[in-house]
């Protein structure tokens, strides 16, 4: 149902206020605007502003909201921190936004070996809570300071971590509490430390792009903190760098927790900001882990032996923590520096290679914007999580460009990203499968797969109430 008049919207707000306290329902225009924009460089769309934003505290409140939304056939969108890079937090139709920030309880059950948290918990807060007790949050998104746990689980993002090293967040999820789109509440998984063999509905919601239910509680295994060792390598060219990374896999080295890279010209920017001597080539930085310092160090040495086989200009372990932090932050600051220097906005893609063709993929990523009408007008920067065979070619979108041109730039980015991930038979490992990526999903997995997802969605959500538009995306 589309609400056309102010009294209709006021009625909706009144009825929502019978489910949650009135003060947690907002129909203010400014809240509606802010809750409908994301990191895309173009403006809010008036016609798609939500009708109301509601902040429930409990699963029961969410259940009632969804039952109500089904009755009046108004879509419901779940929103954490709104940091999606694929347009999943941009709406295609108006509806009710559920902001999860009040669902931010965290409980640590050391005797049971797990913690539980609400979807509105901020990743950083959870990390700090468990780190003080000697545990480690086994994922590290760049947006850790703001990302919500609910969004993170819905994406099952590897973020900057090397997947093959410690897996994905889903590998640590023991169970969930979920409100289905029709308002029914279910529990999945276990309260033990042994995850179910056989059918485990948890898997449908972890990395489910928010299509099949609202996760209201997350139970994750407590992972003891590791010891770490650090290393770096500099290569004359990207081809050798890629070959070095491939060796780590093919020579069966213990994979690092993180392995980042910066293409030479991009690295120069980060090094310069941090007052480091300008690198003579493209840079790799990595973090090895172990149960002891010695083990971590031993593993770092093994990685270095593979990297050294491709004749880097330099490659070694780093013992000086201060130097390491400078190097590591040189990678972290590039995007923000470029934005601040130019006064414009950063926008990047997620190109993922297969192992065998890493050199070729890297070359493609280096020419990511070639022949694209809008993006080719901009300088390309290249870095990424090379341990996870992921590259983030990025550009700076000028603020002076009009809305339409900015939209074309974003569309071109997703088109080229899709072309490359199709070429290498891969997919993004950080940002979700649908919204702007729906066309890619269809090309990559076929219409049959897409129709199957639609059927599953219909089974769970016959009225297409929950996060409408994410699955449809730009299809």
């Amino acid at each position, binding site marked *: 149902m589309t609400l056309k008049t102010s009294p209709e919207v006021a009625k909706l707000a009144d009825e929502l206020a019978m489910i949650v306290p009135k003060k947690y329902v907002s129909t203010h225009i400014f809240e509606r605007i*802010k809750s409908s924009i*994301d*990191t895309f460089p173009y403006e809010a769309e008036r016609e798609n502003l939500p009708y109301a934003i509601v*902040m429930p505290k409990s699963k029961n409140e969410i259940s009632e909201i969804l039952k109500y939304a089904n009755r009046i056939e108004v879509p419901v969108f779940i929103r954490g921190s709104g940091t999606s890079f694929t347009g999943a937090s941009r709406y295609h139709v108006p509806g009710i936004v559920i902001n999860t920030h009040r669902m931010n309880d965290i409980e640590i059950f050391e005797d049971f070996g797990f913690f539980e948290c609400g979807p509105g918990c901020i990743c950083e807060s959870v990390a700090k809570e468990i780190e003080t007790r000697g545990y480690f949050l086994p994922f590290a998104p760049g947006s850790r*300071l*703001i990302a919500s746990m609910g969004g993170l689980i819905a994406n099952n993002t590897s973020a900057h971590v090397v997947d093959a090293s410690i897996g994905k967040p889903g590998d640590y999820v023991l169970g969930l509490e979920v409100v289905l789109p029709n308002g029914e509440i279910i529990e999945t998984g276990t309260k033990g430390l042994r995850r179910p063999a056989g059918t485990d509905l948890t898997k449908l919601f972890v990395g489910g792009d928010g299509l099949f239910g609202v996760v209201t509680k997350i139970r994750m295994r407590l992972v003891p903190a590791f010891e770490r060792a650090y290393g770096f390598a500099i290569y004359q060219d990207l081809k050798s760098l890629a070959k070095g990374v491939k060796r780590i896999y093919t020579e069966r080295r213990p994979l690092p927790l993180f392995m980042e890279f910066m293409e030479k010209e991009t690295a120069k920017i980060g090094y310069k900001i941090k007052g480091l001597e300008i690198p003579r080539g493209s840079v790799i930085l990595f973090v090895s882990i172990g149960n002891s310092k010695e083990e971590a160090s031993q593993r770092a040495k093994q990685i270095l032996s593979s990297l050294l086989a491709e004749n880097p200009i330099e490659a070694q372990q780093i013992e000086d923590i201060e130097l390491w932090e400078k190097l590591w932050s040189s990678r972290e600051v590039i995007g923000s520096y470029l934005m601040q220097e130019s006064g414009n*906005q950063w926008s990047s893609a997620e190109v993922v290679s297969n192992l065998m063709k890493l050199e070729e993929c890297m070359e493609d990523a280096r020419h990511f914007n070639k022949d694209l009408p809008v993006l080719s007008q901009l300088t390309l920067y290249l870095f990424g999580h090379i341990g996870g065979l992921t590259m983030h070619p990025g550009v700076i979108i000028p603020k002076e460009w009009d809305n339409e041109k900015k939209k074309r730039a974003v569309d071109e980015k997703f088109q080229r990203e899709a072309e490359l991930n199709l070429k290498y038979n891969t997919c993004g490992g950080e940002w979700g499968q649908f919204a702007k990526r729906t066309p890619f999903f269809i090309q990559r997995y076929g219409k049959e797969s897409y129709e199957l997802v639609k059927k599953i969605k219909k089974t769970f959500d016959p009225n297409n109430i929950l996060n409408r538009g994410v699955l449809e995306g730009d299809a």
Partner: protein
Amino acid sequence: MNREKVIEDLNTMDEEKFIEDLKEIILDAAKRCRNCNYCFTICPLFHSTRGFMSQTPSGIMQSINYALKWNILKGEDQENLRDLLYLCTTCNGCVLRCKSKATGLPVLDAIEAGRKLLREMMIGPLPQQRKPLKDIYLYGNPYGEKPETRVDWLKGLKVKMIPPERAEVLYYVGCTTAYEPSLHPIGKSLVRLFQHLDIDFGILNEEICCGEPARRMGDEGLFQEMMNRNLDQFKSFGVQTIVTISPHCFNTFLNEYPSIQREIKIQHYTQFLVQAFKEKKPMFRKEISSVVTYHDPCYLGKHNQIFNAPRELLQMIPGVKLVEMKMTRDESLCCGGGGGRMFAEVEEERKLSDMRIAQALEAGANIITTACPWCYKMLQTSIQDSNLGDKITVKDVAEILSESL
């Protein structure tokens, strides 16, 4: 576009241009904002409001941006916008976060430009903030107190009064310390410390508000007037060094009076004392056997990166065990009193000062120190309201130093 340009327009009385400049500050910052939301978890509003996304730094900035672009400045929307803009404590946390992680936007300048714009349009400030503005204009202080009673707290103390006397250091007391009886011990402590260190200091006979509250509440005209009146005084009495109690006055003189820093040395008292103590080695006679934590005032820490001086002073005191709260230094939690909020009731689901006291207790402190009269008042009120007086007390750094002499 910068603040100086806005002031220039105001001084030339080109009101239309002034408004255009304010709009440009807002639109430019919002256009560059990536909506990454990095600013929201560092913002005190994230901890104290209901948590709607419009109640975040980028949310407030985008609200005024869209209000201008989509012309949403009528009726209820007008009030909503005003309430959002005046919710900000102006702590500067968002600016630091944006600089370290994102586009490095002047978020606070945009929010304050929004306030000025609303003031020009007669939409701002908040109703309760009108009286303090009027009082600054009429009495030279935001509390409506008589100017002639401003130095009453000094009775019985031997202090040079400027004029007719002159002194090397102008001790700028500030309105809150001068008029609020519970803060007089802080003012007196600093007198004692100066005397102990043989500092040649004096206090203005006709001290007036620095204008900070006026600027924070969006009244640029009143701010300019107070600035000019203060500058006239400083000039006519040949002031060369100003030492303030309040970080707000300190920041105003240092960063918001355009030309002053070329002629006058501006210091917060913690900076001044650290330097003086290093040169003159004070005699601490009394041990303060307490677990002490330090609350960073935003206008000292997050605005001016003065984090070490107060801590160095506390560490000089025999017996003091200094502990840190979990949010500290550039991530310190604002007390909630800045940005004009001392003069109005704004939305606080959880009071920031209550949270701060809880953090101090969690750190094991039995004294929470600070170096700002407003922070002091906020923290003191929280302790009283929560009946926590038997567990923790608030002290200004000057007080605790003076007690140990």
